[in-house]
């Protein structure tokens, strides 16, 4: 299978190479079931890139993110991290080696930071254990980048609101100067009025500290706001990848098209119109062939037999579909 090359061969920070992550469910009382969370996915994240990973529940997007930073071991395939010219095999390295360069921002700000801690300690502890110097200066810089007032350092985390905690979560991740951060649904648990701030902070962090991001979300519009490129996952497979505006303007995969149709826009004129939805609502995983075939309005006999490969259809725009 051809790897999506991006622009320059050396210009990547994360390389996902034929990655599959399978889980087995069941045990003593039920038959063992194999769950293919990620199935033969390959992609790269470029330096200083924000890659949006969009998918619904069961798409495997969270598993993908966690595997790229070493919290999950690959079942087949490899994940590489390229820093300072060296390539580290994330799947085969101990976490100690990898976590120098990577970090994660979690979805739930209430359980990703221990509420009983002092805000100062939340930022200072990781720096202390990494034997960093200038801890005070680093803390101040992080707080400024996420737009939190320094007075809050004296408070305990439980005194902070959800939005403030999420910003603290970002501060904590970027204070240790990672090269690559996975943001797993960072805005999902926040109110509408707070989402914009968080996305802006992620973008600013990329600018200020040259960090690459994987932005995981189930909301395509959110991904579009700050992602350079967007990848669409469906049932563990990468079905489309391309520049953000390209994907939105010219979606190639039927699933992507269905998603774009389904996302509401501010359109009160449509209120009486019953939208035509071309795909069936229920997710069915087929035994073989294209994973999307059972729901696809354009399914051909070929689709039920063989899995389509990821193909570059136009400059930088890849899709896995027999229509192309």
């Amino acid at each position, binding site marked *: 299978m051809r790897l999506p090359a991006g622009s320059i061969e050396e210009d990547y920070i994360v390389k996902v190479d034929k990655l599959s992550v399978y889980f087995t469910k069941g045990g003593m009382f039920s038959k063992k079931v194999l769950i293919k969370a990620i199935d033969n996915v390959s992609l790269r994240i470029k330096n200083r890139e924000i890659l949006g990973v969009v998918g*619904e*529940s069961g798409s495997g997007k969270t598993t993908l993110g966690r595997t790229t930073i070493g919290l999950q071991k690959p079942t087949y395939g490899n994940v590489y991290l390229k820093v300072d010219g060296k390539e580290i095999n994330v799947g085969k390295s101990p976490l100690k080696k990898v976590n120098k360069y990577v970090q994660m921002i979690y979805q739930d700000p209430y359980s990703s930071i221990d509420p009983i801690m002092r805000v100062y300690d939340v930022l200072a502890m990781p720096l202390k254990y990494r034997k960093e110097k200038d801890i005070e200066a680093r803390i101040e810089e992080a707080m400024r980048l996420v737009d939190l007032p320094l007075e809050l350092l004296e408070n305990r985390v439980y005194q902070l*609101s959800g*939005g403030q905690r999420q910003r603290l979560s970002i501060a904590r991740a970027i204070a240790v100067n990672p090269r690559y951060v996975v943001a797993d649904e960072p805005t999902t648990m926040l*109110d*509408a*009025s*707070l*989402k*914009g*701030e968080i*996305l*802006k902070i992620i973008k600013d962090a990329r600018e200020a500290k040259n960090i690459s991001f994987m932005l995981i979300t*189930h*909301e*395509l*519009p*959110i991904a*579009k*706001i700050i992602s350079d490129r967007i990848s669409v996952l469906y049932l563990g497979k990468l079905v489309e990848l391309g520049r953000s505006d390209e994907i*939105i303007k010219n979606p190639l995969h039927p699933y992507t098209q*269905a*998603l*774009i*149709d*389904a*996302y*509401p*826009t*501010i*359109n*009160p*004129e*449509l*209120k*009486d119109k*019953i*939208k035509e*939805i071309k*795909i069936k*609502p*229920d*997710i069915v995983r087929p035994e073989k062939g294209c994973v999307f075939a059972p729901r696809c309005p354009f399914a051909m006999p070929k689709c039920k037999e063989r899995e389509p490969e990821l193909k570059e259809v136009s400059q930088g725009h890849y899709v896995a579909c027999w229509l192309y």
Partner: protein
Amino acid sequence: MLLEVKNLKIYFYTKRGVVKAVDSVNLNVDKGEIVGLAGESGSGKSTIGYGIMRLVPFPGKIVDGQVLFKGEDILKMDEDTFRKNYRWKKIAMVFQGSMSGFTPVFKIKDQIIEVLKLHGWNGDYEERVRELFKMVNMDPILADKYPHELSGGQKQRAFIAMALALNPELLIADEPTTALDVIVQENILNLLKRLRKDLGISIIFITHDLALLSEISDRDYILYAGKVMESGPSEVIFKRPRHPYTQALIESIATLDKDVIKGIPGSMPDLSNPPTGCRFNTRCPFAKDICFKEEPKMKIFSDGDEVACWLY
């Protein structure tokens, strides 16, 4: 007017103080209308739904106000009368996370049949269940299954079927599509639109997702900190909103045609100690002196828009 809510006040008596979750809210729903109740968390929108169903959880209490259903104040009725004649018969509710609204030990159809029996409905139960499932566009075979055998979207539709069992005139849908995939979400939306068209049922659609609301509602109420900031026909609310909060909220919604979304700085005021004047005053970019002193009154405009703001 099918439903008139006048001056509804619901307060929660907690250890920290009295939280004024719903503070003097007026709203109307006409026959066959889909009315949206929009707001962020803490705005009081769900509480209003529970209030109309008289299901406000402890330590909340309906402190004041009237809820007139076809002219009758349902708040003043005794619990028995309301339960027998109104709750689920005339007004039904689909809750947030209805996916867990079924008990796992019985089949779906049995649970719906039980609801029918409890409310004194007589007739062919199996046929009725089949009818309801057709109404929500589901294969009746699925009714014969246990809740855990259905997907989230299927469970939600099944719950809507159960809510429709006794032909209610008003359906309150509290965040019916949260936690569901966007494609399933569109299906549910289409379903509700069809129900309004085919059955003439009125719907109160409670959600934080303004974009979603814009595609389905005829009129909307924008709630903030327990009060209605603005209300009016959807075209006005979404295209020409007058209240600063409505404008800011629309700016913060991420839709595919936007490249930038703006946030609203600050945070919701403490409802156990609400500020004097307009509740939005600390976060409003247009706040004047009077906004901190007096609460603005609702002003009605010719295009049907009603705004509570000192700018007007």
